[in-house]
């Protein structure tokens, strides 16, 4: 298999397998989670839930008082790499082409240099957070295999995409194929690891917020 055949494979059968597993896993888990239902609330609610669910969705994106100082890398790095990933994935021209091809939806992208800058910042933030995770004893103690693994499968697509565009290490064709392959691995892994927070994050925040309000802790 030469590199063009490798690229054609990841753009064809490889993508098919990855998208298939991703969709299967995602629909499966969402179905399973939402059919669990809620336990019957036997006590009378202390307050009406009101907008606590919606508030919690936003409030949990902000650091609680004092936490930014105690854990700056987690918060600042977390912001940078999440926003960076969104910018790269949704505003990079080749990525928009992919989304347009799969869904028919399309929008204008950003110049390659800005995407490049976002990529470097994202990688720097992710590396800083990895170092922080290794250095802080509490974080290290709490980390499981899944944490290291999901970091790697998130980092690799960013790194390989950047290396392909910058023509580093390997020929562009091979690097592009590796980039697409790494994204396919991410797609396969996503529904079955903590990366599933992409889908469950806001739902669970809402659930917790409204449950807390009923128990008398409105936000």
């Amino acid at each position: 298999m030469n590199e063009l055949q490798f690229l054609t494979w990841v753009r064809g059968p490889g993508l098919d397998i990855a998208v298939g597993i991703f969709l299967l896993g995602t629909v499966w888990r969402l179905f399973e989670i939402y059919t669990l239902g809620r336990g019957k609330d036997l006590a009378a609610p202390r307050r009406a839930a009101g907008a606590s669910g919606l508030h919690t969705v936003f409030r949990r994106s902000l650091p609680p008082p004092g936490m930014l100082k105690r854990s700056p890398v987690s918060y600042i790095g977390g912001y940078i790499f999440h926003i960076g990933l969104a910018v790269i994935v949704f505003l990079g021209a080749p990525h928009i082409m992919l989304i347009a091809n799969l869904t028919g939806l399309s929008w204008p992208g950003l110049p390659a240099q800005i995407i490049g800058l976002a990529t470097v910042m994202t990688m720097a933030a992710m590396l800083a957070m990895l170092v922080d995770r290794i250095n802080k004893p509490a974080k290290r103690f709490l980390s499981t295999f899944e944490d290291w693994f999901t970091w790697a499968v998130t980092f690799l697509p960013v790194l390989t995409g950047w290396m392909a565009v910058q023509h580093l290490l390997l020929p562009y064709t091979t690097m592009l194929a590796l980039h697409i392959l790494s994204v396919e691995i991410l797609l396969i892994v996503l529904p079955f690891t903590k990366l599933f927070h992409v889908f469950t994050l806001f739902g669970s925040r809402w659930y917790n917020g409204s449950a807390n309000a009923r128990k008398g802790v409105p936000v």
Partner: protein
Amino acid sequence: MQGPLIDTLARQGVSRRTFLKYCATLASMMALPPAAGLAMAEAMAAARRPSVIWLPFQECTGCTESITRSHSPTLEGMIFDMISLDYQETLMAAAGHQAEEALHAAMKANHGKYLLIVDGSIPLGQDGAYSCIGGRSNLEILKEAAQGAAAIIAVGTCAAYGGIPKARPNPTGAVSVSDIVKDKPIVNIPGCPPVPVVMTGVLAHYLTFGSLPDLDDKGRPRAFFGETIHDRCYRRPFYDQGKFAKTFDDKGARRGWCLFELGCKGPVTHNACATAKWNGGTSWPVESGHGCLGCSEPDFWDAGDFYKALSMPAHPPTSVVAAPVAGATAGAAAGFANRAKKNAARKARQPITVADLEK
């Protein structure tokens, strides 16, 4: 046309100065040091027409057209005339038995010294019956001719990598020259057709230095195939700025924006089109408004849709309908199982009252 090349050129009205300029250009295109231009001129001027045997196999003659016509009557064409082309079915006057005799005479007279040029792929299916010359299969002819060759130049993607005949489902069992000949130096000059100056560049290198140029991992001369079309494309700045033509006749297309979104394979294609151009430097595919097809890469025919961007799926994903349905089914089944578990737990629950605790 006998005698050194420079005499023949002079007879055709080519001045020494023009010839030197040509050699300097050729040397610089091949990224050789400035002195190489002079060396090239000296060596080529004195060269006594090396014998060249050109074997056409499963091909469309496009490669011959490219070299003999598109640059005619420029220097490339003349240099091409200067070699002693002892066998070339399309160009030679002889036919039938005379042609076969010419081939065998040339092979015998220049054994071990002639250059063998091959265009077209070699079919292996049906014992090679798909393509025969004078009742002999291409495979047989190639094996025989390769034995006495100093080096082999595989011209065109078919000879270099199997090309279009090898495209799925490859009905004739087509293979490339390098799939068959293992013991001779082989230069691949892929392209559908290849750029003429690449061909003459390799010949000039051979005449000057007596060796073949530096090759990449796919057997292509690095000087011409070292960089991608995309990296040398004059439309590259538009790619970097995110300015793309969306259709072949929109505002972007008229302004000459990048053709990536229209399926240009420039980023993964190594060739000299962007620098050498075609038709005597007039234009090249991207300049004329069409994306690169990637014709100088192995198996370009099977590398997905020509009009789909590289970042798009090569084929429409087939799993997008079945997978969510399967997921929903699995999810629903898991949901029922969870519900059953919950109900069972509820039924098995034994409530404890205050009275029980006080017992």
